[in-house]
């Protein structure tokens, strides 16, 4: 019998370091470093994630065949050098920082791997996979398609910012690219910064803000900032951007164009920011759709695989889906740099080793619901609870779900910890905070008392797959919460039009009851949908089923199990701390249930508000 091949993939040193391991084309494990280190978007070498992956594979480090890094540091250095040469004398600070970063750290992956696990695998050297081919591989190889167009759009990776590729069997061929400094991701990030949110994490907030505004700046953006061709290719007018010669995305000319300085973080969000968000969101969607049309044209494929940070823009994904350019779309749930670790594994397996693909059965993908992280046994959980004298009760599965359904129906909020942790930025029912979507107060309660985050941000519905079209204008799988679709007309409610159009403050707009599921209905009657499947997460599926049996509603609010600025919880300890620091009422650790009021007095041992820098 042939020996199995193990490949370890690593992404690090930008944002969201991660590790992944595959065995003979099958994903064994994948996790972001932030979940272990408790540093949000941790860019450091993913020591903990690597060790976890090796443990999960149940192998010794010496059993690893190849170690692959998801980015080529010298290609990146080439880009920096040419950027600096174009700018001239003023680029010294950029060159100094980039040289220390690339020649001092990013070049030495091999050394860091050896320091961590004592070997670089049987291959004897670290293999460097290209950034965008890693993205493309992360979406094509786990997808259900034998052949597909592949589009990757991000800020920048080495030189590329947008690529179109074609995947057939075990091969991927890059066909077209757009290169730095022209970048749809950096354009979106420029507006993220301008609207007072953090670049590389606040893009999601800008997307959430967009439906509150009117896209009145769209022409302004097209006339001044970007020239877009019919095939979706584009070029930015760099006179308006700061990133060629500073560490800022925008410059004074950009600020003047939009009538003043950027919004200060945490200050009041005005109508201007709402309108700007709506405008850049529309421009992004229009370009994204044009790129997809061109990908269809040059590949002839009816399937599309998406990755890169821009593929996390689930509003744009929903619009793309409804355009019906492709028959099928599959999006890598860890579409950002973390997913590059998984993509790098596949590059080694299918392009370097030329391993044949084995397609999943039926329409299922090979991502296993993205439940690829650590899980904890009953023994481990019980030992943790007993060691700390926490008060708990163990339940059988059915009894537990009946109890939770009743509590959620009463308005209680539950921290739900079950099975393997998710890989990627979304909580999908393994590390989730859940509540009743019918409850009109749920959105503000969860935002302000649980998550401590901005009140405008919407929550996502987790719905039984078979019931999705009862509530939403969608009748397909969306297991990774990456598609936004409208709430069905039949469950919508009339809002007060005067408030809707004239309020300068967001709060009265947010507080309007828009549907029978107000907690998950965004201001434009959209929802970011997760379809829940028995095959990939039976525990979460059964809980929603129990809620449906009790209430007739087969939807729960699902948000990530963390507070603002904190990485999503990984261990029972992380979950307990988050439970006690917030207004979560009930904690579920697998089959163990803990009620807040029964717990011993909680003594805070660290200043966690300071520890978790606001994102």
């Amino acid at each position, binding site marked *: 019998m042939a020996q199995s091949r193990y490949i370890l993939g690593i992404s690090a040193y930008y944002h969201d370091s991660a590790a992944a391991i595959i065995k003979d084309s099958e994903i064994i494990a994948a996790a972001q470093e932030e979940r272990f280190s408790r540093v949000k978007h941790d*860019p450091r070498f993913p020591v903990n994630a690597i060790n976890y992956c090796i443990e999960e594979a149940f192998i010794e480090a010496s059993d690893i065949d190849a170690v692959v890094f998801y980015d080529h540091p010298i290609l990146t250095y*080439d880009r920096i050098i040419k950027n600096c*040469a*174009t700018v001239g004398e003023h680029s010294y600070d950029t060159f100094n920082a980039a040289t220390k970063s690339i020649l001092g750290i990013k070049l030495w992956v091999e050394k860091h791997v050896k320091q961590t696990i004592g070997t670089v695998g049987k291959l004897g050297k670290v293999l460097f996979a290209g950034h965008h081919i890693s993205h493309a591989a992360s979406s094509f190889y786990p997808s259900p398609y034998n052949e597909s167009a592949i589009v990757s759009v991000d800020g920048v990776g080495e030189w590329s910012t947008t690529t179109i590729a074609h995947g057939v069997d075990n091969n991927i061929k*890059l066909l077209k690219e*757009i290169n730095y400094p022209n970048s749809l991701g950096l354009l979106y990030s420029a507006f993220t910064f301008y609207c007072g949110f953090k670049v590389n994490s606040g893009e999601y907030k800008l997307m959430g803000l967009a439906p509150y505004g009117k896209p009145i700046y769209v022409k302004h953006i097209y006339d001044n900032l970007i020239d877009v061709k019919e095939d979706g290719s584009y070029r930015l007018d760099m006179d308006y951007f700061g990133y060629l010669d500073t560490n800022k995305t925008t410059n004074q000319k950009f600020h003047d164009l939009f009538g003043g300085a950027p919004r200060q973080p945490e200050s009041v969000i005005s109508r201007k920011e709402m309108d700007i968000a709506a405008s850049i969101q529309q421009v992004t969607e229009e370009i994204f759709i044009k790129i997809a049309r061109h990908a269809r044209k040059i590949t002839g494929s009816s399937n599309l695989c998406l990755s890169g940070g821009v593929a996390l823009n689930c509003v744009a994904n929903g619009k793309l889906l409804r355009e019906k350019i492709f028959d099928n779309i599959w999006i890598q749930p860890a579409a950002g740099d973390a997913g590059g670790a998984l993509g790098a594994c596949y590059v080694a397996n299918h392009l370097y080793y030329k391993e044949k693909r084995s397609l999943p059965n039926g329409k299922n993908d090979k991502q296993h619901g993205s439940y690829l992280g650590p899980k904890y046994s009953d023994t481990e959980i019980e030992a943790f609870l007993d060691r700390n004298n926490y008060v708990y009760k163990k339940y059988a599965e059915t009894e537990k779900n009946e109890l939770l359904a009743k509590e959620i129906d009463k308005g209680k909020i539950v921290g739900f910890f079950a099975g393997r942790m998710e890989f990627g930025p979304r909580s999908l029912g393994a590390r989730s905070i859940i509540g009743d979507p019918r409850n009109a107060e749920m959105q503000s309660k969860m935002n302000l008392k649980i998550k401590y985050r901005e009140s405008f941000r919407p929550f996502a519905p987790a719905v039984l797959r078979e019931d999705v079209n009862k509530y939403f204008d969608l009748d397909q799988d969306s297991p990774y919460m990456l598609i936004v679709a409208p709430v069905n007309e039949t469950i919508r409610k009339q809002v007060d039009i005067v408030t809707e159009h004239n309020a300068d403050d967001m709060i009265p707009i947010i507080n309007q009851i828009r549907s029978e599921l107000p907690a998950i209905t965004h201001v434009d009657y959209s929802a970011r949908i997760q379809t829940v499947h028995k095959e990939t997460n039976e525990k979460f599926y059964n809980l929603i089923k129990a809620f449906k049996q009790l209430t007739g509603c087969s939807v729960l609010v699902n948000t990530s199990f963390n507070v603002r600025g904190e990485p999503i919880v990984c261990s029972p300890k992380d979950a307990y701390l988050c439970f006690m620091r917030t207004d979560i009422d009930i904690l579920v650790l697998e089959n163990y249930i803990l009620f807040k009021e029964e717990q011993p007095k909680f003594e805070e041992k660290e200043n966690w508000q300071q520890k978790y820098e606001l994102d």
Partner: protein
Amino acid sequence: MNLTNTIDLKIRKIFEGVILTNSHENHLNIIINKNIDTYYEEPQNIQQTYFSFINTDSVESFADYLNEFWMEKGSEGFISMVDEMSELAFLLSSDSDTQSEDVSQFIYTMY
């Protein structure tokens, strides 16, 4: 002279020898042209774009790697100081701490 000063002096020297020497031309695609149909480019650097190894076994071998890399890319103007770059990389390597509690600004950058 301490290591930090040595490193900074070397970076300045490379900046003057490579960056400023090549600063008379534009190396980026930043010209907007309304008269063309597409801005898409054909993928370049095929091997490095897919997968490759980087030879960092010694100062000499890394310098050879950089030399070959820029020759293949048709960027001969950037090879004049590959020996200095390689020496600098090995110096920086001994000076870096990638796992400190305070995440280095040089790690978490857009570079």
